């Protein structure tokens, strides 16, 4: 029991449960999942589905943060990826051609990889501080995305493309399946190979890692490319979900949510140890919070305040120092009582 309470993901998990239960007071059927039109339907499904882009971005961000870096450009990469795919599809003679859609997807992902390589180049090869290096792409990338879309929202009418973000397979949202598989593969790859260890070492102590013969530049580079890929896939899911590409708004400010998810998941921003499962849980908590706000009907003018209070509560619950002080105060109170 003690071990469970002390687990680093205990408090985020508690927060998730509290939010879910809280929702059922406002909407009794909140936890109900039914089968409708041959697929699962319900708020829980919505939460998972709408958390997919954030979870992916947080996954990439986790690895980057483990190298003691940060990637602000993920939102822009998402926008570029979605815009590229939609532009390509919109030029197709037959938007429903699976081949054409696959080419579009491949193209978008390739471009995301290239953008990751660019970030990695600035950080690992030139040695620019990550926050500034990725700020460049964050700003310019939005411009590039808008350049691709011509500043308009590109709407596509392609059922194969729509499957990625809004479709169902085996009654489960395809996007959830994609993300689950991708995360699982990434987690296995990272933990079963030595990648995880070497990345943590590079982030934990770069000097020592160098002297231990680790080529840190290589791993830093891999991390940014991976983050680029994650953001790229997230961009596809995001744009496919609404069958359109919005160069300006897609992925806007998602970097903050992703970083928040990573930290809630127990990965320190100073680099080193990282937890993929934690970040995914963090992403789900954040999305649940968003959905809660809609369900409970928090007035728009108070949504941010509500979010702030939840985040502060979560941070304090997670802080061992806070719990220690609180416990001491309580035991002192009991003693005097």
């Amino acid at each position: 029991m003690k071990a469970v309470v002390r687990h680093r993901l205990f408090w985020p998990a508690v927060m998730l449960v509290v939010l879910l239960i809280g929702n059922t007071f406002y909407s009794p059927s909140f936890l109900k999942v039914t089968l409708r039109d041959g697929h699962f339907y319900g708020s829980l499904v919505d939460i998972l589905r709408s958390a997919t882009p954030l979870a992916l971005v947080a996954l990439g961000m986790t690895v980057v943060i483990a190298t003691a870096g940060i990637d602000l450009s993920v939102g822009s990469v998402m926008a570029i990826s979605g815009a590229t795919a939609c532009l390509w599809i919109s030029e197709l003679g037959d938007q429903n051609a699976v081949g054409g859609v696959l080419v579009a997807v491949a193209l978008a992902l390739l471009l995301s990889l290239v953008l990751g390589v660019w970030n990695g180049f600035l950080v690992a090869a030139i040695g620019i501080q990550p926050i500034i290096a990725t700020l460049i792409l964050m700003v310019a990338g939005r411009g590039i995305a808008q350049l691709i879309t011509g500043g308009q929202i590109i709407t596509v009418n392609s059922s194969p493309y729509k499957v990625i973000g809004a479709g169902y397979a085996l009654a489960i949202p395809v996007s959830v399946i994609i993300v689950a598989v991708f995360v699982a593969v990434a987690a296995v790859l990272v933990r079963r190979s030595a990648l995880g260890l070497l990345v943590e070492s590079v982030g934990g102590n770069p000097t020592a890692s160098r002297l231990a013969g680790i080529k840190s530049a290589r791993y830093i580079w891999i991390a940014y490319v991976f983050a680029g890929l994650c953001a790229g896939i997230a961009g596809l899911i995001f744009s496919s979900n609404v069958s359109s590409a919005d160069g300006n708004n897609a992925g806007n400010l998602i970097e903050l949510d992703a970083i928040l998810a990573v930290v809630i998941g127990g990965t320190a921003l100073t680099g080193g140890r990282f937890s993929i499962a934690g970040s995914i849980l963090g992403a789900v908590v954040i999305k649940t919070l968003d959905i809660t706000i809609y369900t409970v009907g928090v007035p728009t003018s108070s949504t941010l305040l509500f979010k702030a209070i939840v985040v502060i509560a979560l941070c304090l619950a997670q802080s061992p120092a806070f719990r220690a002080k609180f416990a001491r105060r309580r035991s002192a109170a009991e003693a005097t009582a």
Partner: protein
Amino acid sequence: GGADESGSGNDDGKLTMGFAQVGAESGWRTANTKSVQEAAAAAGIELKFSDAQQKQENQIKAIRSYIAQKVDVIAFSPVVETGWDQVLKEAKDAKIPVILTDRAVDSKDTSLYKTFIGSDFVLEGKKAGEWLVKEYQGKSDTVNIVELQGTTGSAPANDRKSGFADVIKADPKFKVIASQTGEFTRAKGKEVMEAFLKANPKIDVLYAHNDDMGLGAIEAIEAAGKKPGVDIKIITVDAVKDGMTALAAGKINFIVECSPLLGPQLMDLAKKVVAGETVPQRVLTEETTFTPEQAKAVLPERKY
């Protein structure tokens, strides 16, 4: 008139206009920019364009720079209504006339700008409400309305909300059961609508502050196994092409137009202002509303 004050841009006698755009935050805005640029070219006006990326301070900087560059006339779409007095005074001191587009400023000193051309967001909200009232005339059942608001704190969101509320509050059968921001985007519109659909078993009407949120919501409604436009009536604002297509297809029931195409009107006004002619303080853009039938008719030549 400012043409004789000599400026960098008008040695050739051409009129120079500095245009400080809000940004490129939506397709509507891009259409607006395009309209201004094309109209300027057509009218033989040299246009200096700058994009403020939704930041008021950037817009102020841009206007300052136009004053320094000694353009003949300045036009801009204020990011927000407040806080322009200072820079407008500077423009006035430099004897450069200013035209506001799209949105007003709330300055008491109306001499700071020559004229204002743009839509009336409150009126748009009212038109949406009036259609609703008419649609449900004679029925007494409660009408459950959900509202997708624009970006929290933005003028169109505030005004479209209040205009709509003003009209429907007369009849107690209209009930706004949920109202949340969809940040003017499709993705948010869809996400919020999904939650609305689960939390509220009976929704009769959706009022979205722009087409994009409405289009996102339509996807959510369809995924919930309902028919947009039939099971849930949908009213939106803007009338961009995608919205009009959905309207023509019957997925949206009513769209209040908010036209971005004010370029030609703006150029006319600019010429008059520079020539010293008097112009009205307030020029409304030519706007209308659309029902599905009207949409079908105008859709083929819809440009944006």
